């Protein structure tokens, strides 16, 4: 899949909220040869930001060592129904995408 769709699921636990984000992204290392024998240029997410109700709570920097179509899970302290979670990414080509969900 090309870089694009995202999906997020937030599950309220006791005292914390589990969040799982799925991202479509090739996460090309720049070291892999394509069918034509040439190296496929590096193309990977470098930054992930998680915000809760507009406030940043996680800033991640990642490398091409993260697998294709990344699945990123994290935990929020507490959490309440209706809290708005936003996850965005930025890749090495300057492409960006984001998704939002409210804790149900």
């Amino acid at each position, binding site marked *: 899949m090309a870089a694009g*769709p995202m999906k997020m699921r937030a599950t309220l636990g006791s005292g914390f909220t589990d969040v799982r984000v799925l991202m479509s992204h090739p996460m090309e290392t720049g070291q892999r040869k394509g069918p034509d024998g040439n190296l496929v240029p590096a193309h990977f997410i470098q930054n992930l930001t998680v915000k809760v109700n507009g406030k940043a709570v996680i800033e991640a920097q990642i490398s091409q060592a993260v697998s294709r179509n990344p699945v990123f899970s994290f935990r929020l302290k507490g959490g309440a129904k209706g809290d708005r979670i936003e996850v965005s990414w930025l890749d090495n080509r300057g492409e960006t995408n984001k998704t939002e969900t409210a804790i149900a």
Partner: protein
Amino acid sequence: MRTVTFGAVLALTFAPAYAQDAKKEIQKYQQMITEGSPVELYELEGEDLWKKRQGPKNVSLEQCDLGMGPGRLKGAYAHLPRHFPDTDRVMDLEARLLHCMLTLQGRDLKEATKRVFGNADRPSEMEYLSAYIAGQSRGVPVSPGMEHPKERAAFELGRKLFFNRAGPWDFSCASCHGEEGKRIRMQDLPVLSTPQAARPVVATWPAYRVSNSQFKTMQWRINDCYRQMRMPEPTFVSEATIAMNMFLTVTGNSEPYRGPGTKR
């Protein structure tokens, strides 16, 4: 077969602790990749394609009848393959989807089957659609058609195909999937002719394969086994492939569907 099973039980009992640990760790790996699977992304894309107007008639597939009535998806995949009166053929999911593309959307066979198996960069329409539709059967017990004479004939043909040795390497499906407790490299080989081994397989295909980041369908799975058996290529949704699918699905029937799965 009975003696083989007994042998396998003995082998397991006396297997060195190392092998037991390795097996446990590989199970853990399998579980963790399933938890961290991007498979839902494929379901989302498939939903879009299901609803997308396409073909000369510019209609979506939403009125496609997968056996539960036009547009009814809940549990439809779990009841495939089955006999369809309108075509008087036993069809699996991909055969039926192709049928709907041709009839509802007015597309031609060549165009619709030009690229049935995709790759990591560009999955195929069939793959996306299979992900979406299979996902609508989660929790529904796998119960393919087993009554109609053509359904029974498909099962019998699939069963014969499974054990049929041919090709330059003299392989049948059973050459690899015929004996308990065996593996190829590190990969355990389910004895697909037995219910206990077939059940978890049919309950989790189609599936996302982490080794190549690709979403794969049962038609592809059968196709790729025949590649490794050194045989010519099965034609997409041909009677032989549907019979194979029918044999596996009937053998593994009854467990609730829990796919699309995630494989190593």
